């Protein structure tokens, strides 16, 4: 694109409007990703040396593991996804970010909420509900922050010039709507007016499936479709043809209709109709998964498979592949005869991790590394490291989730076959060793990602400091220079 063309001029101001909110969302997110993976590595040490943290309540496995998970999911995935959603809405609306103050405030509230929640888990104040361990304070902050950011997203969406919706609009709008509903339902029924007995587990399962599977799919696929089909100003954009549009719409509908039924494990101590309904939902969820796979494959074929250099499309294709694998694992967990064998094992854990770290994180990091240079107006500080980060993530997740999935199947079969419990534990250990190696790769990748984000923040802050200093030294000259630049800009815009 010609850098002096009027479109690129407005494009640049539109992009600049995202700067501060994005630095807040992605900077905090990158930090939490590193923190979360650090906690995950510490947690995994318990299995290598059980008495390693025997004297330290803060670092006991049962606190570290949920803290690690929440730091990654709530600390990184959600704010990063929100930032990328804001960016995509700006691009599709060809507008600047509206109400930018809301995401700035929202991002800070969000990170504060995560901080409070994590500290509470580590001092023994977890609620005890998987994936909802944050106490009231933390969850109220998260909820409010999400709404603030979503309002800005809706405003930007409303400002679009083309009335017609892009397929990624469907997924992302639904994601903005989905989270507040499930998060408020779960928190109200578990914390505010706790339901009795096993209903708590049902509400939690419902939330987990709708959040960790459906929401992550809506967000990740929505982002992926934007980069696969291209936005309005993308010269290479092919856009979806009618067939692809139909397939995407089909996958959207089936995902929200059937995905929302999943989550109640087969054999759970609840009335039989609940797991039965979930089994139907899980079986039908194979439809959106396969459709997404075919849409992605076609997009690759029409645009040709460029060599992978860690760009957004490359990340998205890998991410989508992981989504398809994780989706099939998710469906298997919900099936009547297979599910009971593998569900209370490391396999289920591997599925969630693959969905979060393999699919959503890889897609989001790819998108962020592609959009930040445009937002900031300068290139990544360490572009090479972004590529290294890409391959570290991919090899890390394959080792981490792959080993645990295989180990989990073995564990499940051995538990069924009545092998003594100690043998079962021992036979999983080699796989666990490999998975910790994978975690180390992921951790390194996260570190490189954070380095890039923080490098950009620093560079930008220094540049601002510089211009401030210049203004202090010679106010008139600086203003005059700015005026000529603005006049030149206006002249070009006309």
């Amino acid at each position, binding site marked *: 694109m010609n850098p002096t063309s009027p479109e690129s001029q407005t494009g640049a101001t539109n992009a600049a409007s995202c700067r501060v909110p994005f630095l807040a969302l992605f900077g905090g997110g990158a930090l939490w990703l590193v923190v979360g993976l650090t906690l995950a590595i510490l947690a995994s040490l318990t299995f290598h040396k059980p008495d390693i943290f025997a004297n330290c309540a803060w670092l006991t496995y049962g606190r570290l593991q949920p803290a690690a998970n929440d730091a990654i999911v709530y600390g990184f995935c959600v704010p990063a996804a929100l930032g990328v959603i804001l960016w995509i809405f700006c691009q599709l609306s060809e507008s600047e970010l509206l109400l930018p103050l809301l995401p700035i405030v929202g991002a800070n509230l969000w990170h504060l909420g995560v901080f409070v929640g994590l500290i509470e888990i580590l001092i023994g104040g977890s609620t*005890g509900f998987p994936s909802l361990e944050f106490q009231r304070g933390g969850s109220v902050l998260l909820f409010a922050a999400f709404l603030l950011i979503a309002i800005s997203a809706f405003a930007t969406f409303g400002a679009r010039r083309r009335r017609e919706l892009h397929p990624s609009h469907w997924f992302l709008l639904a994601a903005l709507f989905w989270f507040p509903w499930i998060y408020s339902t779960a928190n109200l*029924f578990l914390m505010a007016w706790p339901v009795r007995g096993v209903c708590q587990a049902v509400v939690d399962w419902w939330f987990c499936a709708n959040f960790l599977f459906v929401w992550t799919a809506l967000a990740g696929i929505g982002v992926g479709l934007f980069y696969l089909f291209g936005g309005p100003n993308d010269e290479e954009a092919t856009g979806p043809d009618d067939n692809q549009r139909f397939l995407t719409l089909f996958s959207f509908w089936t995902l929200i209709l059937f995905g*929302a039924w999943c989550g109640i494990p087969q054999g759970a*101590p609840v009335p039989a109709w609940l797991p039965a309904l979930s089994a139907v939902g899980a079986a039908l969820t194979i439809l959106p998964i396969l459709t997404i796979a075919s849409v992605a494959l076609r997009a690759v074929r029409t645009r040709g498979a460029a060599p992978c250099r860690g760009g957004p499309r490359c990340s998205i294709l890998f991410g989508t592949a992981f989504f398809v694998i994780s989706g099939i694992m998710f469906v298997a967990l919900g099936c009547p005869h297979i599910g009971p064998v593998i569900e209370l094992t490391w396999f*289920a854990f591997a599925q969630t991790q693959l969905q979060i770290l393999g699919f959503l994180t890889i897609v989001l990091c790819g998108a962020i590394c592609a959009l930040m240079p445009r937002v900031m107006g300068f290139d990544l500080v360490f572009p090479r490291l972004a590529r290294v980060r890409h391959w570290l993530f991919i090899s890390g997740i394959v080792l981490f989730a792959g080993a645990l999935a295989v180990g989990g199947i073995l564990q499940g079969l051995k538990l069924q076959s009545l092998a003594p419990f100690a043998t079962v534990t021992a036979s999983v250990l080699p796989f666990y060793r490999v998975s910790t190696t994978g975690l180390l790769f992921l951790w390194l990748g996260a570190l490189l990602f954070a380095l890039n984000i923080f490098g950009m923040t620093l560079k930008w802050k220094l540049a601002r400091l510089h211009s401030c200093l210049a203004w202090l030294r010679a106010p008139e000259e600086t203003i005059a220079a700015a005026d000529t630049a603005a006049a030149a800009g206006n002249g070009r815009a006309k």
Partner: protein
Amino acid sequence: MKNGFHVFLAAFVALGISWLGFVLGSILQLGVEGQATVLQSSDLYPVQRPGAATMGLQVYRAEGCAACHTEQIRQEGVACDVVLTAMGNNPAAVKKAVAGLGAQISDATNALPKTVLSRVSKAGADAATASISSAGGTAEIHIVATGPDIARGWGVRGSVARDYLWDDPVQLGNLRAGPDLANVGARLGNVTWQLLHLYAPQSVVKGSAMPPFRFLFRVEKIGGAPSPDALQLPKPFAPAPGYEVVPTRDARNLAAYLVSLHADVPLFEAPFTPEVSTK
């Protein structure tokens, strides 16, 4: 879909259906559940846990034991055992009938009651009792729950919704890095064992992979008389001479909670014949 409102509506309908079914439906059905009478008894089940155990649940939650342990026994189905309870007047005929079922019994009557057929269908059990009673003996049909969890000895029946009535938060867990604990009080009902296991799992389970929870205990210098609560640890795990290991209140509550974990009474929705009557 033409505009944002349509997308909103689609998501609203999809999530609304699932919300009505799973959230509201289960609350309406399970939320009204109360105590029930235990089969063939007038006892009510479940009863509230004792106070210390209720507080112990909060320790269990805070330490995240559910990250490694489940509290849900899975059951695959039910089967019948045929138990011979009396030989009657014609032991030889009964013996012959039992041999026809593929089992052997000795002459001594104190060997009774004896399980002569195990894990058969209802029809098979009925046929067997009929053949025994036509030979003059008496046989009972016992209902047993089946499945790997039960065969492992983790429980005598599958967990049902009612088991969790009084617990808040319900700690079902989702990973079995350690054994299932839904019925641990029935198999390891000794508070001292539980305390030893929490302080030093390897002192009671050889090669245990469970992390020790030493921070739930205090190592104290023995003052005048040793504390009556102090753990009697085997040599490699014992503290330095002159010191003793005393459980904190959290540890004692947690142990009380663990031994209170029982899911071993027959219910209408989870029937089985209690073990006591067989040998």
